């Protein structure tokens, strides 16, 4: 039998632990496939996503149209994989935006008592405002474009993350090991990054996967109102929105982009859960 190597805390052992997790691997696989389809769409798509074919309107899935066609006879498969490019980009960018600002705000509010009240009130005020209305106002002010949509949705989801981070920070700040760290002279910024932020990884990951899904759907809402990207460019959200009118005759129009959203969110959650477990030594099964 091969000698068991001594336990070391290294990147390699982290990767090897990652590989042994079934959920993580399945999640990663789905994510890679979805992303690859989106990125390689021009090579894979059998038709141009905007090619109209009046004779082939609302055709069910078949050999030539794998996912059927929409009300203008456009190929739903081609549109679905092309749509992935923008949908995934919007989801990822909004999560990144919300994570950067939400985590910073939440940490600062939770850690510095003097700043807590002003930040917490601003967060509450933003949460009290109806999401879509705020987005409409922002897009109206900034002019519709992809960047505007990302910024507007990012601003909407920032308080959600900030609230969770603030609440958890308030709890962790009072834990004995944080006080012990202070008593041994660890500077505040280090306590925040090493001791507090590291403990927030799982709530942030979980909330991040939710925001990813919400952002893709909210983008659809904005596009539906004509405030998002131009209607010629397909996204999963706009496809579902458009397909809604035909759901009785052509359910494939909503079904396939819907499946695409479900698959990407599900895979993200699987990966997120796996990462969370691996980052928490108490949940590791190999110890």
């Amino acid at each position, binding site marked *: 039998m091969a000698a068991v190597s001594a*336990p*070391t*805390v290294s990147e390699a052992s982290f990767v090897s632990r990652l590989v042994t997790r079934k959920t993580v691997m399945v999640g990663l696989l789905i994510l890679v496939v979805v992303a690859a389809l989106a990125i390689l769409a021009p090579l894979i798509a059998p038709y141009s996503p905007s090619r109209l074919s009046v004779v082939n309107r609302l055709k069910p899935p078949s050999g030539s149209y794998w996912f059927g066609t929409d009300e203008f006879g456009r190929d739903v498969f081609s549109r679905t994989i092309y749509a992935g490019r923008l949908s995934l980009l919007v989801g990822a960018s909004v999560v990144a935006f919300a994570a950067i600002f939400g985590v910073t705000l939440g940490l600062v509010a939770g850690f510095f*008592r003097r700043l807590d009240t002003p930040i917490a009130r601003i967060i509450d005020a933003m949460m009290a405002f109806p999401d879509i209305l705020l987005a409409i106002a922002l897009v109206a002010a900034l002019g519709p474009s992809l960047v505007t949509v990302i910024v507007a949705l990012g601003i909407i989801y920032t308080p959600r993350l900030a609230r969770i981070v603030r609440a958890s920070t308030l709890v962790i700040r009072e*834990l*004995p*090991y944080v*006080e*012990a*760290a*202070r*008593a*041994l*002279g*660890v*500077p505040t910024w*280090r306590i925040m990054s*090493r*001791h507090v932020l*590291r*403990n927030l990884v799982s709530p942030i990951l979980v909330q991040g996967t939710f925001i990813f899904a919400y952002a893709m759907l909210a983008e659809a809402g904005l596009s539906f109102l004509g405030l998002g990207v131009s209607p010629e460019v397909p996204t999963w959200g706009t496809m579902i929105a458009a397909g809604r009118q035909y759901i009785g005759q052509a359910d494939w129009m909503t079904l396939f982009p819907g499946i695409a959203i479900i698959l990407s969110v599900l895979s993200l959650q699987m990966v997120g859960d796996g990462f969370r477990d691996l*980052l*928490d*030594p*108490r949940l590791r099964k190999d*110890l």
Partner: protein
Amino acid sequence: MTELPDHIVLKVSDLRTHFELGSRVAKSVDGVSFDVRRGETVAVVGESGSGKSVASLSIMRLLSSPGRIVGGSILYRTSQGQVIDIATLPERKMRAIRGREIAMIFQEPMTSLNPLYTVGDQIVEMIRLHEPLSMAEARQRAMKMLELVEIPAADRRLDEYPHQMSGGMRQRVMIALALSCNPNLLIADEPTTALDVTIQAQILDLLRRLQREIGMSILFITHNLGVVAEIAHDVVVMYTGRVVEKSPVASLFEHQKHPYTRGLLACIPNALRDRDETGGRLRLNPIPGNVPPVTALPPGCSFAPRCSYRIPLCDEAPPLMTAGPSHLSRCWRHEAL
């Protein structure tokens, strides 16, 4: 430049730490003075609410608002021989004191370590924070620290997480962490309270041995007079934020000059002592009543309502009086005790 005799590491004088709660003021520490000599251990004893923990947090300047040092001084001699007043030191300079000069360990060994990092990581962090060492050097030092606190298989233990260790092990790790930067003074806030009696004895042994070897001073906060007898040179007994009795340890156990100290001792169960003439078990004698809240202290001696030696004079607040050679008591009747 403030003066401090050479053999004294820490001199707390008339320390007053108050919590301002709206219009009420909780005088958690109200005029406490004591000295910690080089290489010796001072035990601060008292019940919950006596102000002993607030006093130790004041020395570390780790009070959370609205707690504030409102008076007195905390003179400390740094390892460079400089004398500083911690009570008025700017926070920026205080950070260099914590860990490097004065380190602190806490009651909860189960939660005083971050569960997400190996104990090695945590000790290495502490060492590298205070000293410019490479990763490898710091790890080497961390291993030496674990050996110093008598953790077997130190090199393997370095890569373990706190949850893989027992309470006694974790308290050893905490001590290793606290000592990794060679502090002059270790403040131990009830470090053995959460541990089994056998483990308690081991930890006390360890602290005594480390004190002998390193020559550091220890400020030991506890409510357990049994532990005091084991480890302390001097004892400071606190009640409602004030010192009620102060004495070398032998003198204190020989004759207590304050009814409160006497009461605390009577609360320690002793299977051999607590028998009547026929060998039947006697009941323990707890001190009647509770510690009054520091926001509502009785006028006069704050212990009077619970005291069986009470006389009319006790309506007047007693000062700290000399009751023997370096033995102080805040009781009008210390001579009668």
